[in-house]
């Protein structure tokens, strides 16, 4: 059984995280922003799993389960909010949804 090297696992997690972050920052469609957030969450989950494999400890995997559960909750709430936003404003463009401007 060959182990994936610890470093490449982390690098993959970092790349995924960055991709997600960039997605959040540049996409204007709110659904894609939510997707990007999911990618970021999974990237951090991957980092946990990698770390747990490196030190042979179970905590990282437990954390990943937590993250999964949280992501599921977040998606359900987030999608419901998005439905409402679309219902109210007939758009999903976050730049036009700036009614909270101070």
């Amino acid at each position: 059984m060959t182990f994936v090297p610890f470093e490449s696992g982390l690098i993959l997690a970092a790349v995924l995280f960055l991709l997600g972050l960039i997605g959040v920052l540049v996409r204007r469609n709110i659904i894609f922003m939510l997707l990007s957030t999911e990618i970021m969450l999974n990237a951090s989950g991957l980092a946990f799993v990698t770390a747990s494999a490196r030190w042979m400890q179970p905590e990282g995997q437990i954390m990943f389960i937590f993250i999964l559960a949280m992501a599921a909750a977040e998606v359900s709430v987030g999608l419901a909010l998005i439905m409402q936003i679309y219902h109210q404003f007939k758009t999903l463009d976050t730049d036009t949804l700036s009614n909270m401007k101070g």
Partner: protein
Amino acid sequence: MLNLLWLIPALPFLGFLLLAVFGGRMNKTGIAFLGVGSVGISALLTTLIGIDFISSPPAGHSFNQPLWVWMNIAGFKPGIAFYLDSLSLIFTFAISFVGFLIHLYSAEFMIDDEGYSRFFAYMNLFVAFMITLVLADNFLLLYLGWEGVGLCSYLLIGFWYKEPENVYAANKAFIVTRIGDTSMAIGLFLLVLHFNTLDIQNILQSISTQWVRGSSIAVLTAFLLLGGALGKSAQLPLQTWLPDAMAGPSPVSALIHAATMVTAGVYLIARTHTLFELAPIVQNAVAIIGALTLLIAGFCALTQTDIKRVLAYSTISQIGYMFLALGIGAWALGIFHFMIHAFFKALLFLAAGTVINALRHEHNMFKMGGLRKELPVVYWTFLIASASLAAFPLITAGFYSKDEIIWYSWASNIGSPWLWLISLIGAFITSVYTFRMVFATFFGEQKTPVSHKPGKRIKIPLIVLAALSVLGGFVELPETMGGFAPFTHFLHHTLPAVALRSEGSGTELLFQIITAALTLAGIYLAYQFYFKNVKFTERFKQTGLSKYLYSGCGFDWLYDRAFVYPAIFFARINKNDFIDNMYTFITCLSTALNEMLVKTQTGRIRWYATVITMGAVITLTIVLVS
């Protein structure tokens, strides 16, 4: 019977409480029943107690009813206690009885007002405080009543508070009388300092035994108390609030600003007459202030066009007569004039209110005219009251009260020809302005149509007061008419009799004839100038003198420049002092910060995400580097 004394002020107070709490939920019949009834029972009780008091007088012709100790601080123990003697009995009688009639009148007069229950609550509270004032056994309770009536006066002048002028008038009345009240409070502090009590009878006894006649402490205390009396009774130089106080409803003017509250100063001086006798300078000042006030206010009344303002100046003038009477030592006559004045002046205000209401709130009496046929009851009662005010000889009560004051201002041992002359001129002017008012309002051609006729509850008080304005005088006849004087005789249990000057006082009859002739001449003059020959008066109206008198002899102008404008000026330049700047700086800083931070609130979620990322990166960098 005398033990029920406490009920006289307590009943109106109870009426106030009930009206204040439940007034909003009661219908108008209930409100009127409660508001008028409480004062009515008080008046009835006063009559019964008065009969009891006169028929079987208690020991020392006074009755003391202590209820409980108010506070007890190091031997200083003022109580809630009432004291009834001939002086306070007459005041209580006039207040509750005239008060009852005015309440009855108001029940109809105010019927269309949305503040019906508020009005009766205030009026009941006023009666309660006023009776507390005159029945108080100690100066502290008296002061409570004194300030209480001031409060009610303020509330009722500003009763129609939606008009800014009314609120202004209420503030003016409150602030100007406050000047006098402060002076009175200092006077009371002096008394506490010397005697460690505020019990009126104790103090008066201590004063007469311990203080020397004319000593500086007696003069100072008397002077300070006089200040309070001047403010409350609208005498020179604190008279400016009363004409403006006419902004209130007419029953308020009748009750507070004619019959009762404004005579509180007269009561105070009469009550502390021992003190004033020990300070002859101050007593002289009382006479001189009274004389000047009656003259100046009389002249001012000559040029007013608002019927209520004429009556206001006439009230100031008549209280001037009372002060004159007190100042020359004719204590009982001052009180007699108070009582008669309460009758006829309340009647004049009530009748004027009816006229104003009938003409859709027309106050200018030169726009009235010819109401003789339209409002016969009002006309006749108004005429009777006017005759009484002008001291029409022999038949009116005003004649008996005023004529004797004029006579004693000559004949008293501290009177003088000057005081006599001024009071005589005052009587002449009084009859001129009074009948000017009568001719303008009720004679000539009708200029404004009558829209509203008074009903029964308005007519009854008018008729009763008219009867009193005539019959009230016969309890006190001058020496020349038999000297039947049960009124002064009754008061002499409390107040000393007039000391006549020993020689050369002349005959009273001659003086009476002069006074009566001048009164009639004044009526004739008013008839000539304001009824037959109006052209002359039209020309007089254009003169500077007339305008000067119309403005109340320029006292408002003077006070504005002497006190009001400097105060505003100082307030304005003090606005930017150091401490203020400190606080202004803090507000400016927070506003600036706020504006800066508001800019970051773009409302764009991507911007927030970017900032969060940047923050996280910076924090991580710092953690990693350090």
